[in-house]
């Protein structure tokens, strides 16, 4: 068995909620609760879910931009959960993150050339001339002309800024990039350009990606495996093809069913069969007992309010206890795991 590039076990992140005149801790936001997954070299894990499901918190915690409350993160088999500042800096060469608007995290008063040179300076790499050449190479790699180096962030459009953000992320040739809603703010014609760029870079650099987005069609397009999150937990975790052709968790089914399809022909059928969830996502400060989805689930039974459904680590060969659907057996690398007590009943009752 080859070691996964990144492995996460029981990752948990709680944020304290303070109140009263003394700002005492009166509760916790359960942003991420006991999340486990793994990513192999050159592969993409998609993290999907709606606002407040914890997907961005997972991304930031992986890079230790947030401190995990519990659980472990392994990078190339090494536990990085408690690395000190110097080791963390070294780790940043291997793991990077691209945000929705990269310029929120970059200095608007620095030229693009200086922004792209910075990673090399921090890591004391190259001479000034070498670094200039590397910056030119980076710009070319992401499809920008070298005169971009003299210009400033505000002179670029959203798509170009994202290219610069990506250039900065790949500067030190990392093995993993977390893309946190990296294309969400872009128009569709620009989005497709940036998605293609990410696919090219992944192939050329054998990059692993963690692709966090709320757009399920985009996530499906980019991912090898997908974890669907709801209120801080993974409710379904499977190979990408599998999760879209045979969603098992009632939440995944509702999420997929809600996607507007750019094909008007069958829309009346879709309207009749669409699963429209009632109500809003409950507060992560006081999440529902048992299965967190049960108050919105049409299939919920009384014990769903008391028994917590578990999602075991999903790789079939590593964990035979995980429920793997017979239909997916045999397909290379196919796997599926679902955190629902009654998923088998639901899946047989619905065509």
């Amino acid at each position, binding site marked *: 068995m080859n070691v996964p590039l990144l492995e996460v076990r029981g990752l948990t992140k709680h944020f304290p909620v303070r109140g009263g005149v003394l700002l005492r801790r009166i509760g916790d936001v359960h942003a991420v609760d006991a999340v486990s997954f793994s990513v192999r070299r050159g592969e*993409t894990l998609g993290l999907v879910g*709606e*606002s407040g499901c914890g997907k961005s918190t997972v991304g930031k915690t992986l890079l230790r931009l947030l401190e995990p409350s519990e659980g472990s993160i392994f990078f190339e088999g090494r536990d990085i959960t408690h690395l000190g500042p110097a080791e963390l800096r070294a780790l940043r060469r291997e793991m990077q993150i691209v945000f929705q608007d990269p310029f929120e995290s970059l200095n608007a008063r620095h030229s693009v050339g200086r922004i792209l040179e910075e990673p090399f300076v921090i890591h004391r790499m190259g001479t000034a001339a070498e670094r200039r050449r590397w910056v030119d190479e980076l710009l070319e790699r992401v499809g920008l002309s070298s005169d971009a180096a003299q210009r400033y962030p505000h002179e670029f*459009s*959203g*798509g*170009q800024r994202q290219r610069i953000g990506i250039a900065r992320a790949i500067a030190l040739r990392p093995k993993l990039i977390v893309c946190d809603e990296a294309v969400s703010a872009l*128009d*569709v*014609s*620009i*989005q*497709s*350009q940036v*998605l*293609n760029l990410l*696919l090219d870079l992944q192939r050329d650099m054998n990059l692993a990606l963690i692709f966090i987005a*709320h*757009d*399920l*069609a*985009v996530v*499906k*397009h*980019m*991912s*090898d495996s997908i974890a669907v999150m709801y209120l801080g937990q993974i409710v379904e975790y499977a190979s*990408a*093809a599998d999760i*879209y052709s045979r969603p098992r968790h009632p939440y995944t089914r*509702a*999420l*997929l*069913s*809600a*996607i*507007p*399809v*750019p*094909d*008007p*022909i069958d*829309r009346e059928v*879709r*309207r009749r069969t*669409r699963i*429209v*969830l009632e*109500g*809003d*996502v409950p507060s992560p400060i006081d999440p529902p007992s048992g299965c967190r989805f049960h108050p919105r689930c049409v299939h919920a039974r009384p014990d769903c309010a008391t028994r917590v459904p578990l999602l075991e680590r999903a790789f079939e060969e590593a964990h035979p206890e995980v429920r793997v659907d017979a239909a997916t057996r045999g397909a290379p690398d196919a796997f599926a795991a679902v955190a629902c007590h009654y998923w088998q009943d639901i899946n047989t009752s619905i065509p």
Partner: protein
Amino acid sequence: MSEVVLSVDALSTEFAVEAGVVRVVDKVSFELTAGATLGIVGESGCGKSVTALSIMGLLPKPAGRVVEGRVLLNGLDLLRLPKDALQQIRGRRISMIFQEPMTALNPVQPIGRQLIETLRLHGDVGDRRAARARGIELLAEVGIPAPDRRLDDYPHQLSGGMRQRVLIAIALACRPEVLIADEPTTALDVTIQAQILALIARLQRERGMAVIFITHDLGVIAETADRVVVMYAGRVVETAGVAALFANPLHPYTRGLIASMPQLQHVPKSRLPTIAGMVPALSALPQGCRFSNRCSHATTICAIEPPLERVDMAHGVACHHWREFGA
């Protein structure tokens, strides 16, 4: 043929910017029939929102100005109405909802007061108690649970989806004939978007209201619209019934837009077709066809502005080369 409720005829809007004056909307025409949904689709800067604001008389002053055209609401030209007359029509006969209800709602007033204010301003609802009862009724109609208690909530106490419901309740309080929805679900999660789209569709059906649905999302267009107007850089490039537009898109921009969308049935991790380059600044548009600098089919004739040609009774396209595409 159904009757036309709203007719927009050669509408042009200009904005004063530092560099001079730019034409953000250029000779845009379309018709909205009673009870139907017209989708206006296009990317950032295509002029779709400014078209809506021009219709509503809500352009930011003094920067924005309608320079020509007519907007006929059942024959009444909204662009030539005195301010107070337009005020009476806005909200009562034609209403608008926006992407971010938080900015459209007053943050320091309970939502009930904002709703009741609209009712009292436009409708004949009688005394305070009657208005409150009507407010509760409206909140219930847009699917807000426990509306009698919600009436005293402030906007920040509600979720994004609930705020959009409140905005819809306010917009529909006076039973307008036309609702303009400008990206009403763009800021919402997909399951909440499904709720809001279903809500708008139900209210439209119950009231026989016509809707202009403005969005960048072709998926939303395919789910909601009867007719579609595709805009690019301030102009209408294609207009058609929704089935024809997706089955037989004729403008290279429409074709590129549809092709570049990742779709669930695509082969994963395959390269997506793209549209080269990006939308030029309105102050630096190419001569003639505004899409020509990004278009792989462009030839010398494209330096001449293409007229919106009729392909058939219901399908129009502004491209010199459309005959080469077609299904």
